């Protein structure tokens, strides 16, 4: 039974815990990580496992600059205001060396701007928004993951090859879906000037009325569909679309549809033949991936998702930057990040000096079925550096600083 005294004792303990300054531990290098663990749990649980594995490996190998690394992780609640607050807490109370993490675009952009204000390095791990390195780019922010533009550009060769004239588009109504759609239209039009976009549906994120959307798209009689749906929206769209015959004789592209996070829940309903980007962990045979895969499976008895690779790689980036800078001075770290190259499960990546975007690539292929589970088939790896716009175009978008 909970007595008032115990309640009081518990509350006082909490108060004490929250105001006590953490003991200064000088023998480790602390990295501040923040992410929307509860709001985007499906993607971020594997991500967390990824960075935990990386920390273990780095420390087993002796750490960096003679010290072990430690990650102080916080939940930002998927909300930019909360994110800025926990970022502040990481810097001023935990005294972390710099910041990594974030998932949704708005949180990534807010933390990037905060990093600029505080003159602190920030490696944005997950946000896909193009703006974080281009329109809103700043000197202190670097981004690891293949961006919306890059993933879209990777699908363009296949889309153009089909020579389909009538395209319909469906996307979740927020930054990511809007940018993907804009990039897709622009790039396809360049390759295939006679293309027509006959229908566009922008359902709210997580609330697609899939039957009505599928019907509206079918009414436009498209030859092909470009979708940037993911998560439960994608699952609903796949089911309603196939029941209603929307996909019969129509080629479909889905931007993130091959990522295990979104493909696996579909089980035997995985949409065979769709063109997707994703992560065929079961087929990649490069030594750097094999090493990662073995270690991950040994530690977790589970297979990695794309988020695991991102979480693992962002720690590797951070460690490589510290090693190259040889110090924790912000300006030296930022200088080290520009042009930094290191190995990841997807091969060697480089953070471009031009716009601070990493050249991490992605796997492009088609959805197939094997043993009642969706897989990627006929896939190939596309290096990120081949999916970026020309330097002149980037310079035009990115503010000079």
């Amino acid at each position, binding site marked *: 039974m909970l007595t008032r005294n115990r309640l009081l004792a518990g509350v006082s303990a909490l108060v004490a815990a929250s105001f006590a300054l953490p003991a200064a531990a000088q023998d480790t290098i602390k990295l501040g990580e923040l992410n929307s663990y509860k709001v985007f749990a499906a993607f971020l649980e594997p991500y967390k496992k990824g960075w935990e594995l990386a920390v273990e490996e780095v420390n087993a190998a002796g750490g960096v600059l003679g010290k072990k690394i430690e990650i102080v992780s916080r*939940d930002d609640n998927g909300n930019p205001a909360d994110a800025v607050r926990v970022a502040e807490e990481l810097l001023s109370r935990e005294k972390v060396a710099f910041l990594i993490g974030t998932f949704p675009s708005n949180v990534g952009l807010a933390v990037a701007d905060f990093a600029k204000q505080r003159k602190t390095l920030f490696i944005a791990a997950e946000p896909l928004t193009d703006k974080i390195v281009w329109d809103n780019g700043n000197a202190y922010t670097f981004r690891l993951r293949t961006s919306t533009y890059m993933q879209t550009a990777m699908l363009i060769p296949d889309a153009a090859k089909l020579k389909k004239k009538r395209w319909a588009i469906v996307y979740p109504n927020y930054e990511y879906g809007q940018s993907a759609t804009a990039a897709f239209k622009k790039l396809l039009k360049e390759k295939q000037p006679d293309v027509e976009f006959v229908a566009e549906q922008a359902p709210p994120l997580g609330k697609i009325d899939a039957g009505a959307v599928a019907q509206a798209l079918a009414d436009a009689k498209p030859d092909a569909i470009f979708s940037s749906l993911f998560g439960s929206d994608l699952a609903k769209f796949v089911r309603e679309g196939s029941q209603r015959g929307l996909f019969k004789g129509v080629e479909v592209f889905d931007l993130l549809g091959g990522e295990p996070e979104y493909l696996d829940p579909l089980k035997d309903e995985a949409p065979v033949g769709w063109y997707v980007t994703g992560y065929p962990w079961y087929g990649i045979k490069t030594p750097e991936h094999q090493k990662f895969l073995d270690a991950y499976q040994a530690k977790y008895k589970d297979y990695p998702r794309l988020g695991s690779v991102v979480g693992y790689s962002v720690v590797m980036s951070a460690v490589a930057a510290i090693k190259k800078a040889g110090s924790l001075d912000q300006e030296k770290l930022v200088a080290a990040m520009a042009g930094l190259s290191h190995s990841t499960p997807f091969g060697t990546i480089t953070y471009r000096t031009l716009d601070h975007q990493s050249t991490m690539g992605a796997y492009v292929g088609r959805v197939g079925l094997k043993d009642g589970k969706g897989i990627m088939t006929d896939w190939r790896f596309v290096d990120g550096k081949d999916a970026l716009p020309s330097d002149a175009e980037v310079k035009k978008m990115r503010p000079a600083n």
Partner: protein
Amino acid sequence: MTFASVVIQLLNGLAAASSLFLVSAGLSLIFGVTRIVNFAHGSLYMLGLYGAYSLIEALGRTPLGFWSAVILAALAVGLVGVAIELVVLRRIYRAPELFQLLATFAIVLVIKDVALAVWGSEDLVGPRAPGLSFPVEILDRRIPAYDLLLIVIGPVVLALMWLLLARTRWGALARAATQDREMVGALGVDQAKLFTSVFFVGAVLAGLGGALQIPREPANLEIDLSVIADAFVVTVVGGLGSLGGAFLAAVLIGVAKAFCIGFGFSKLTLVVEFVIMGLVLVMRPYGLLGKPPAMARAVGEPAPPLQPPRRWAVGAWLVLFALVPLLGDRYVTVLMTDITCFALFAVSLHFIMGPAGMVSFGHAAYFGLGAYAGALLFKKAGLPMELALVLAPFVAGLFAVVYGWFCVRLSGVYLAMLTLAFAQISWSIVFQWDELTAGSNGLVGVWPSMWLSGKPAYYYLTLALCGAGVALLWRALFSPFGYVLRAGRDSPLRAEAIGIDLRAFQWAAFVLAGTMAGLAGVVFAFSKGSISPSSVSIAQSTDGLVMVLLGGVETLSGPVVGAALFTWLRDTLARETDYWRAALGLMILLIVVVFPQGLVGGLKALYARWRPA
């Protein structure tokens, strides 16, 4: 759109309406009888989905397995509803109005984390309905057979509910309690049992609504909050307590959404239901089929008059606050800046909700619009930061002038829902007007001028501005203006009889509160350097409500204490445990059960009891 697609979109809309009707009917029933705004109703729906998924896996993907799973899941959710009623709500029926909302909010947090722990984070895609997975051809177009079945299920449940309510003794009691709950009690009906049974039926309906969606919707952790907003809208548009109204409203909204999509205005689906709700409430203040509520007798005692603050106490607190930056922990200053902003936000909400008796479910509109106004004046109009800071609250006030004019014409939950409608319409404009507001990304680079860029400097500015705001609102409460508001809350008839133009006063109160919320918003925005649509969202409005109720709506300092406690708890718990939502929910439940008048109200009562006579 051709004739054929119109027909198909109509059928799509009707199919979508079915589940919406079920969950709203449960909500409406529970509200009608118990007067509880059950925020956790969406969570019950979510449990129905997850429960059905697991049971189908266990019982097999056969027609028998599927349908028994659906029924069993609904019944199991009904039992969860009973447990909620017995363990939590029963203890707080006598608490001030809406306090139960706080308890159900805490339950939402707990259920979300329990579902995460039990079912994991990955979406669970259920099977198609065995035996009904084939499409039916209508006018050369295909529609899943299951959707057609859903179209039938809605009216069937409506008919069954009508029979239950009109033809059974239980139904007669439930209807009687909806009309006059004190009279039912006075006639010797065991209210406790009646409430428990009503909760069971309401929860079963929510669970059934969720379970029936399993072939159409993957079980996922975000569904609870998206459903609850829809269900509130349907319930209110239909008229509280009216099942027929709920059905009509569900159909209206379901079909309107399908047509928005069919005609190529898919972006409107974000907001169309709130536009409908706004229009309906402006034209029919009690919803489509609702009736004006019977004159409520006072439940328990009327709220005691507020005590004016003691000057020395306020002074002492101010000195303490001013010392915070000297602690040397920069983060405490940052956290205190947040708390101070939220304190003004909560006090401004309390101003209209407590003494003026107008509950707002959409107070974030003014907070967020103030913040956006400041950011836009600063970034787009190029005004100095100080000037933007001063002007922004008045922009929020202007919106309050417009929104308030409509809102003060309603009362009770209808008023609350109209404020929500305006807030959601504002949110969707902010969310989609890319050129002006940068859409979902929000605006960044909203930093204060050099002389305020240090955290202590900005904290002192926050303390000065928000402190002045709180002082102004509190001063107003003890002026004749404040007494008029209270008179209007406690006895509108008498107030009007002595010649007070009540609506004008309430409107003025609305505008004042909106302006102050805008001040809190713009100070907050400049402290973060960025502003995003989440500051206008339902979540922000709910946070405000939770702060006020947590501290105690019948006390003056309650909202300040609530804001501090809630902000601090969330910050601390999120650091200590992964399951911080459940921890936060349990903490709130504990406070709810121990202090049914809110924290400050409860402490005052304790003090009054223990004080030496």
